[in-house]
Every structure is written in structure tokens, then in C-alpha cells.
């Protein structure tokens, strides 16, 4: 595996050099916390930023995305015919993404890019995107990534994994995309692969030691869906829930969307927007019936999807990378770690 060293004084010039080839995204800090955003030409990513409030999911899956358009002008031959919009497929790089957010991209890929269905918008964005991760040396109190098959130095889904060594970064180039990005920046000082790997292993161990969460998922697969569905604890779990969409929107793995058509003058546009299973509208039928008519139904759905349905369907673990954003942002402190343990420990008395 290819390791390179990037002196920090070469970092910003290198990033600037890469802008000819890449649209650059990275953590940006403002008064309300940190977010992954496209960086203006004069902006550098804030690499030592705290965990971003929102994940990097929007780089591939924007909250609102124009997908089709049509003219309503009946004098035109193709009026009312929906056509794909032109997408910007310029290569883009996300700098300083946390490893769990890259693992999340891998999980979201199961939905948008699989043998049965390929979402053209997501796939095009995915192909254009290079993910340059930064190992997390100080995981916060909500981080439980090690419990769910990820971790502060996980490589899954990343193209490059970097370690911050004070005056330099050591970068592990994991894919061809990663190598191309490094070349575009002019980062080419190779580092000793053996020594670097040892260093990564030490940092990884140190970081993982700091994560104290004990979330267990080992027994979820053997439970039946109906036992968990009928478990007695859902009323209690859901009591405090206000049914806002915060948990689903901050989640890097929540992939549900809604389709909306809007018109303005003679132009019709079809958008897709993030949707949230916490909203009553999510399952509201045209008949007026709502199969998930109460908040208990909806809270149960969120956890059942993440921790049971997904697990059963894809056999790739739970639909959660342990970033802890939903725990940190939930206004009423519903904690997926507690719910997961409760589901894992539940034994039906029937």
C-alpha cells in the first residue's frame, strides 16, 4: 500500500493546485458549528474542526436535487416531456471526512447502486467523488463507531486515510482515485510503508481505547421481526419524541427521499428532497389512511429499519456507523445506543 508524507506547509498550496481538477469540499466552521461545504476558491478546509453537525451525505445526495425538467410551452414539440437535467460531474474531493462518514457512503451505496437498480444521479456523483479521510484521534462522547464495525481509523469507503502528525500528514492512498487526487495536489513524497502502517496501528489503538460506548448488536439477527416489533418498550422509547426530522437528517446513512414537482412560468421541475420517516406525511396514503399514524409507529420504524430490517436484508451489519450525531442533536435525548441494546437484549416471554 502506498503511503505519502504531506508537510503541512505544502498542504494549502497543494489543495489550491488541485482546484483545477477538483471541486473541493471540506469542514467549514461558523457560529453555529461545523459543516461540510463546497469551499470557495479562497477557502481552506478546517481540518482540526469538531465533528460536523451534518454528515457528508449531501455531497452525493443533496437535500434538494433537481432531477428532471420539462417545458410547459405547448408550442414546443416536446412540451410536458420530462428530461434529465444536466448534472455537474466535475471531479470533487471531500477533505477531512471522518472515517465513519465514508463507511456510511458504502452503506448508502447498497441502496443507490445495486444489481436491481442504479440511481443515475447518486452513481454519477459517487463516481466523481474522492473521499479523503482524516483519522479521529479524539473521539467524542457520542462516538460508538467501534461497536458497529467501523472506527476512528476505519478505511472502508475511503480513497485516502490521513493521520495528523502535528507538522505533517501521513496519507495512506487506498484507491486509484486517491492516487489521482494526491497527484493533482503534487503530493508525492513517499513514506516508509512499514513504519507508516505501524504508526497508523498505534494511533488507531489509542483512539479506539477512548471510545467507551458498549453497544451490542450480536443477537439482533437471530430475533424475529415480529418479536421486536411487538416488544413492550416502544411506547417508553417514543414518549419524549417530538417527531422532528433531526435524527434522520443528521444521519449519514438515512437515504429516504420524496419526489416533488414544481412549476414556474413555463418550466416544470422534478426535485427529490430528503424525506424523514419521523414525519406523518412519509406514509400518508392518498386514501387518507396512514399506516404509521402515531409517533410510536414512526419511532419504531426508524429503529427497526436501522437495526433489524437492514441487517436482515443486506447482511452487512446494522444501518448505522456509530457517528453519534443523532444522539448529540436529538432535542429530547433519544439515544440509539440504548435502544440498540434494548433490542439486542430483548427476550420475548411468549
Amino acid at each position, binding site marked *: 500500500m502506498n503511503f505519502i508524507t504531506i508537510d503541512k506547509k505544502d498542504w494549502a498550496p497543494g489543495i489550491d493546485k488541485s482546484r483545477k481538477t477538483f471541486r473541493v469540499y471540506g469542514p467549514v466552521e461558523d457560529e*453555529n458549528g461545523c459543516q461540510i461545504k463546497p469551499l470557495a476558491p479562497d477557502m481552506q478546509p478546517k481540518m482540526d474542526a469538531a465533528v460536523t453537525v*451534518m454528515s457528508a451525505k449531501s455531497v452525493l445526495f443533496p437535500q434538494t436535487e433537481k432531477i428532471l425538467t420539462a417545458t410547459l410551452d405547448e408550442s414546443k414539440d416536446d412540451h410536458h416531456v420530462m428530461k434529465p437535467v444536466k448534472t455537474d460531474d466535475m471531479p470533487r474531493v471531500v477533505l477531512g471526512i471522518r472515517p465513519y462518514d465514508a463507511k456510511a457512503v458504502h452503506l448508502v451505496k447498497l441502496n443507490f447502486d445495486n444489481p436491481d437498480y442504479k440511481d443515475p444521479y447518486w452513481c454519477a456523483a459517487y463516481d466523481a467523488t474522492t473521499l479523503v479521510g482524516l483519522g479521529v484521534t479524539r473521539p467524542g462522547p457520542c462516538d460508538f463507531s467501534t461497536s458497529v464495525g467501523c472506527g476512528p481509523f476505519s478505511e472502508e469507503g475511503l480513497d485516502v486515510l490521513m493521520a495528523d502528525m502535528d507538522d505533517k500528514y501521513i496519507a495512506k492512498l487506498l484507491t486509484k482515485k486517491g492516487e489521482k487526487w494526491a497527484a493533482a495536489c503534487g503530493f508525492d513524497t513517499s513514506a516508509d510503508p512499514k513504519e507508516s502502517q505501524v504508526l497508523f496501528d498505534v494511533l488507531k489503538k489509542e483512539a479506539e481505547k477512548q471510545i467507551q460506548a458498549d453497544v451490542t448488536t450480536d443477537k439482533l439477527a437471530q430475533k424475529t421481526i415480529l418479536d421486536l416489533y411487538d416488544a413492550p418498550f416502544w411506547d417508553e422509547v417514543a414518549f419524549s419524541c417530538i417527531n422532528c426530522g*433531526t435524527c434522520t437528517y443528521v444521519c449519514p446513512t438515512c437515504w429516504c427521499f420524496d419526489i416533488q414537482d414544481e412549476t414556474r412560468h413555463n418550466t416544470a421541475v422534478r426535485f427529490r428532497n430528503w424525506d424523514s420517516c419521523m*414525519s406523518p406525511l412519509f406514509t400518508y396514503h392518498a386514501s387518507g389512511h396512514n399506516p404509521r399514524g402515531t409517533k410510536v409507529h414512526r419511532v419504531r420504524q426508524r429503529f427497526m429499519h436501522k437495526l433489524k430490517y437492514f441487517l436482515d436484508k443486506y447482511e452487512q451489519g446494522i444501518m448505522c456507523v456509530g457517528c453519534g450525531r443523532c444522539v448529540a442533536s436529538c432535542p429530547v*435525548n433519544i439515544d440509539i445506543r440504548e435502544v440498540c441494546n434494548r433490542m439486542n437484549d430483548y427476550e420475548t416471554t411468549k
Partner: protein
Amino acid sequence: MDTCIEKIRAIGADLLAKGTVEKVIGFADGSIPMATRPMALTSDKDVDKLVFNSVCGLNLANYVSKNSLSNKEGKIAVVAKGCDARNLVTHIVENQISREQIYIIGVPCTGMVDKRKIAALFDDEITGFEEHGDTLTITSASKTETVKKADVLRHNCRVCTHRNPPVYDVMAGDPVEEQTLDHPYEDVDQIAAMDLDARWAYFENLTKNCIRCYACRNACPLCYCPTCFVDESSPQWVGKGQNEIDVTTFHFLRAFHCAGRCTDCGACVEACPMGINVRDFTRKLNKDALELFGWEAGLVLDKRPPLDAYSPNDPNDFIK
């Protein structure tokens, strides 16, 4: 502060043991620092789970409106700060609940802390939060900070003039002194003093990070419409995407819908994951309600709110 917690627990246990109420709605400790979670107790044996401290920032009246009269539930006790109690009064005045359905355990309140202000003292994440009297001790992996609670109060608590519940069944402590303010609406006046373009830019900037999760709406006890206008699809009043006109339309209309009803409890801001001070909208309407009608919401049970009553003395000409 004296958090009155022993008294709250004793009252709760007594109410549940005697069967006076079916459940007690209060705050329990959260799973992370500076978090509490609303909970409903049905057994007097569980009252030790109740807490009351400076991070009980949501409004528990919100957990009553959804169990409104039509559900024919039994009596519910609610642990209520000044603002929570005012929202319970508003529920009663707006016929969402009857006075008899509610048992108000009033808590004199010395304010809730601004978690973002505290987080801003640290570069890393907060791992511990302790409260002793009016001193807060906050820790992270890198340092410990000791601050006076008064220095990190939420803005709505700094300008609160109803710390004691105006209506209650029992008080869990002696009333605290109410604040008197020379300029209660200084923040509103500052925005009002901007010229039109600057003001518009201010509000555009305010909502630019909104993700439309509706946490502000859903944390608000006033927002109990069976279907909110933003969720209507036939007709669809507002677009559902991130178009800034749609986003601001939501915020403007939500605020207007709270006119003359808002108690400035701050739950909306507390709930917002993006740190948007949506009170900038509602505060202006609170100021108008006070200046035009001499009205503050939720103080009395026997007066109609200004916007649901006709008066020949209405200050607006168009209505006469």
C-alpha cells in the same frame, strides 16, 4: 439553584400513590452531558428518576397538547417552570385541555443555560457537566471550566419576567424574585433599527442553515394543528425543498401563527440542531402583542387572547 427536586419527587409520589393523577410528566437525566429527556411516570416508585436542573430547556406543556381532551385521558401532573405553566394556561384558554385535566406542579425557575454558549468555551466535546448552586463545572478531555450560571443563561431566560408559574396547583418551592428589565426588547429594537436591505439580509442569514427538520415547530406547545400548513399537499401552500423562499415562508408563517400566543419559552431554539435563533421572529410579535394590546400570553385563564377576540377598541383601523 435550589432545584426543588426533593419536593418535586415527593409531590409526584404522593399524587401517583393516591391516584390523584394517572401520570406525572417531568424531566429525567439524559445519556450525555447537558441533556435531559421528558418522561412520563405512572408509578410512585419511579419518582427518583425525576430531575430538575439548568438543562431542562424544553417545554413540557408540549407533552400534554397531544393528549388533548378528545383522548379522554385521566388527570396528568406536569412539572412546570414559569413558561411551561404559561403554555398550559394557553392550552386551556385555547380549549386544548380542561383545567381539571391538569395538575400543575409549579417550579420557581432561575433560568436554563445556553448549551451552545457553553460548548463555545471548548475546542473539543464536553464530557461532563455538574451544577452546584449557581456554579457550573464543565469538563472536556482537555480542560475543566467553572462558570457562573448567570453568565451562560439562555437569552430568553435573561429577559424572562415570569419565572414563577402564574397558575399552579402546588408549588415545589418558594417563589423566586422576578426580574425587572429596562429594555426587555433590545434585541428586537436592534433588528427593527436596520434599514430594509440590512434587515432582509439579517433574516436570510438567520435561516440559511435551516434543514427543515421542523424541530422548532415540533418542540413548540403552540404547534398542535392536526396538519401543519407546510405538510398540506392539497393544496400545497409551500414548496418542500431547500429553496430559500420556501424555507423563509415556513419560518415567517410559523412565527405569525404564534402571534399573541408565544410565551418565549425558548424550546424552539433549544431544539434546533442548526443553532438558528428563530426567536428573532416570535419576539417581534410578542413585543407587538404587548405594545398594541397590553398582552402577555398564558398569564390568566379568564381573558381571551387579543387575536381571537373582537374589541371595539382594537388599535387597528381595518377591523372596525
